[in-house]
């Protein structure tokens, strides 16, 4: 129980730091810390595959993408007004408080299937995996087209 509490506190703290730190590099490092703690939480929940994917994609790839994006662009010095901050707090409260207050009926979901991870991915959700491949290829094509367009203009 104490491990989960420590992980939760660490995750929330690093999430706040990731949003409110001024330097983008520090923000990305905080986000990576949050993702690593999330992966530890997954290991603790007996979900090793999800944890490894979280470490590889959520932590590694996202951090590399964001740092590359930061190094390729230059930051402006405009500041956020207090009105915008207040609106942000109101929006997040409206979206999130009902979930905390309301009860989640997990009992109705308990009719579970007994599947291993490999059969869940390759048999039960095989169409999803195929569609996923299509999504990844389309995304890769989109990125290549976007960056190639810039080179052509130059």
């Amino acid at each position, binding site marked *: 129980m104490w491990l989960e509490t420590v992980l939760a506190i660490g*995750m929330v703290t690093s999430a706040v730091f990731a949003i409110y730190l001024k330097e983008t590099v520090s923000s990305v490092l905080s986000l990576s810390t949050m993702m690593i703690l999330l992966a530890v939480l997954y290991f603790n929940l007996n979900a090793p595959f999800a944890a490894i994917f979280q470490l590889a994609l959520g932590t590694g790839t996202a951090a590399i993408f*964001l740092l590359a994006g930061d190094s390729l662009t230059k930051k402006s010095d405009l500041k956020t007004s207090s009105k915008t901050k207040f609106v942000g707090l109101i929006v997040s409260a409206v*979206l999130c408080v009902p979930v905390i207050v309301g009860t989640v009926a997990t009992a109705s979901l308990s009719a579970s299937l007994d599947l291993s991870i490999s059969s869940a991915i390759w048999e039960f959700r095989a169409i999803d995996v195929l569609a996923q491949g299509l999504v*990844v290829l389309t*995304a890769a094509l989109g990125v290549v087209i976007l960056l190639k367009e810039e080179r052509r203009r130059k």
Partner: protein
Amino acid sequence: MDYIILSVTILAIGIVGLVTKHDLIKMLIAIEMITAAATMNFVVFGSLMENSLGQAFSILALSVDACVTAVALALAIAIYKKLNIRDVRDLSEITETSSDKETQTVEEDQK
């Protein structure tokens, strides 16, 4: 229930970041946070019901999330290279100015 509160807290921090920050990279970080909070629910519910389907869905969601980040970042870099802008407010100002110009030219053509 504790895991749901943790997930919703991270979701709330992500939404606050998405609304209050105007830097494109910071907004992407907030989006990453929101998707991590959403993906956490798959694993938590799958683990509570001792079902590996939650892990399978989380793996699929993480892959799509990486694709979304890559495309959004490519768009941000393309916008920066073309307009030299990284702030969303500057981008909306440019869009408003260009739409005003378009309406002016349409009105002039009608006259």
